[in-house]
């Protein structure tokens, strides 16, 4: 038991290290830092310009703007980590040709992918922090760290990131079986979450059936909890459609739906893994 735990921690440690080397080592540190700052800030401009074009000024509706801004910032984790983690399989398989070697190593491939996800989370966390700091300093986003419920924020952040990571691993499993379409599938899933989970608009603007889908996905509760934790001075209850629930209830919904997604993700990964061995897909070459 202790040996297995040690092996699993070792797997996560070294795959995270590998991921970090891949994420950060492609250029010199200065250029990496500039890229890390410029990319999220300019990405944010798209959202700000859209808001300004529609409503004239970010100050016109500060509650909606903060709702959008914080949601958009945290959605970076969904897009980058989920998409990036699934891409690990394709990259190892077809670019570096290392998938076979990693796969037959005496480690859990599931945890190997989790480790690779951690490095993507670290890089994305930097982008999220830069985006939020830019929002507070330049756009008056009402993040108030003095009033933040840190325990709630920490637990919610951890559960949400764990959930995103496991969904990513499930998509990595699907990538075992797919060729170049895998990136389309991953982008599609990320797009569905963008559509249904109240990222930049409240789910209340969606038809009821779409709201129901949104309410079944943990990302919806996670973004709500992040907003409530970081921007306690604003009341999002009217627009979010989740105003009737307390913070603890939202955390409970997040936990339960994340557990359901975790079980589903493990099942998808294991089934895809078995199918890949059965169909001989582990070393297919489709892109490079």
């Amino acid at each position, binding site marked *: 038991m202790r040996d297995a735990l040690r092996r699993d921690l070792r*797997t996560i440690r070294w795959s995270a290290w590998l991921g970090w080397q891949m994420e950060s080592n492609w250029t010199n540190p200065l250029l990496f830092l500039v890229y890390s700052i410029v990319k999220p800030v300019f990405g944010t401009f798209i959202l700000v310009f859209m808001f300004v074009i529609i409503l004239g000024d970010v100050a016109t509706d500060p509650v909606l703007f903060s709702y959008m801004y914080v949601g958009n910032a945290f959605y970076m984790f969904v897009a980058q980590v989920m998409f990036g983690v699934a891409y690990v399989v394709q990259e190892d398989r077809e670019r570096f040709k290392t998938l*076979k070697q990693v796969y037959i*190593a*005496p480690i859990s491939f599931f945890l190997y992918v989790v480790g690779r996800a951690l490095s993507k989370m670290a890089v994305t966390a930097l982008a999220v922090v830069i985006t939020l700091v830019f929002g507070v300093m330049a756009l008056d986003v009402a993040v108030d760290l003095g009033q933040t419920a840190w325990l709630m924020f920490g637990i919610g952040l951890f559960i949400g990131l764990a959930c995103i990571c496991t969904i990513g691993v499930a998509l990595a499993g699907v990538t075992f079986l797919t060729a170049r379409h895998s990136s389309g599938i991953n982008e599609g899933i990320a797009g569905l979450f963008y559509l249904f989970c109240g990222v930049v608009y409240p789910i209340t603007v969606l038809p009821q059936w779409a709201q129901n889908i949104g309410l079944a996905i943990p990302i919806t509760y996670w973004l709500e909890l992040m907003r409530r934790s970081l921007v306690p001075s604003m009341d999002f209850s009217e627009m979010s459609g989740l105003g009737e629930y307390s913070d603890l209830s939202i955390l409970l919904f997040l936990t339960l739906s994340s557990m359901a997604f975790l079980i589903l993700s493990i099942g998808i990964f294991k089934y895809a893994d078995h199918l890949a*061995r059965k169909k001989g897909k582990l070393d297919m070459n489709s892109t490079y």
Partner: protein
Amino acid sequence: MRYAIEVDHVTRVFGGKGDKVHAKALDDISLQVDEGELFGLLGPNGAGKTTLIKILATLLLPSEGSVRVLGHDVVKEYNKIRARINMVSGGEISGYGLLTVRENLWMFSQFYGIPPKVARQRMDDLLERFGLLDKADAKVRTISTGQKQKMNVIRGFVTDPDLIYLDEPTLGLDVNASLAIRSFLRKWVKDTPGKTMLLTTHYMVEADELCDRVAIIDQGRILACDSPSNLKRMLKRATTFDIETTAFPGLDSMPSMDGLQGYNSKSVGDRALTRFVVNDEAVISEIISHISSKGGRIIALGKSEATLEDVFIHLVGRGLE
């Protein structure tokens, strides 16, 4: 004697009933490899060698039959197998280009739980043996193909596996790199009794030089399995002739003749080298007549010692390449 590998009536089919591709890569094959043996799988491209290695390495499931590696079933007990095996594939050069040679090796050694001190010592020993010590801190993307393949061979051995699969380890490499790898393999087998190696190759010399036993495989079937010397003894009633001619049309399509078991032609510029395996030397005059009738001119003719390639020609009726 315990078997390192037991393959029992294994068939592997790619593609289902409705799929466009439907191919039988392995067709009811059985073989056993003893612990401590250096076993070779010899066959042309597409013979099924790599498919068999993938099954043995737990990368692929057999469609039918059973496979046990180091006493464990490859379908159900793959976790027990993986800690004790490793694999090196030639032809496809793998590795994380952004990492250094040492970092690549280190990461894999840690996946196998090799204690850091032992891993470092082994890495240095192997890097030195392969003449890669001066490239240890170079990024993999900056080193040559031969050096990358040497790194991959080191990756396979740094975990000190009980059983290693080498799938065409010298494919596409220059003579020096191939010699270095062959020399290392020979030494490893000598220095580590009890460790097993399964080598697939379509280089006859490699199989002849390195292997205790060789299985000749073609179109998913094992045609013969024995030591190289015993396989060559199969040809004691057959004779091998090498005939050098000018190139002529129809070089690859000799008519069937009584006494001709098989042949293999290679074009070299405007000349052709053809090896004939015959069980009646009288047929040579008929072969020469045929060559002349097609406009070919005999430049040289010689009788030669049987090789594994001759065994292959004898069994299959054509050459390996």
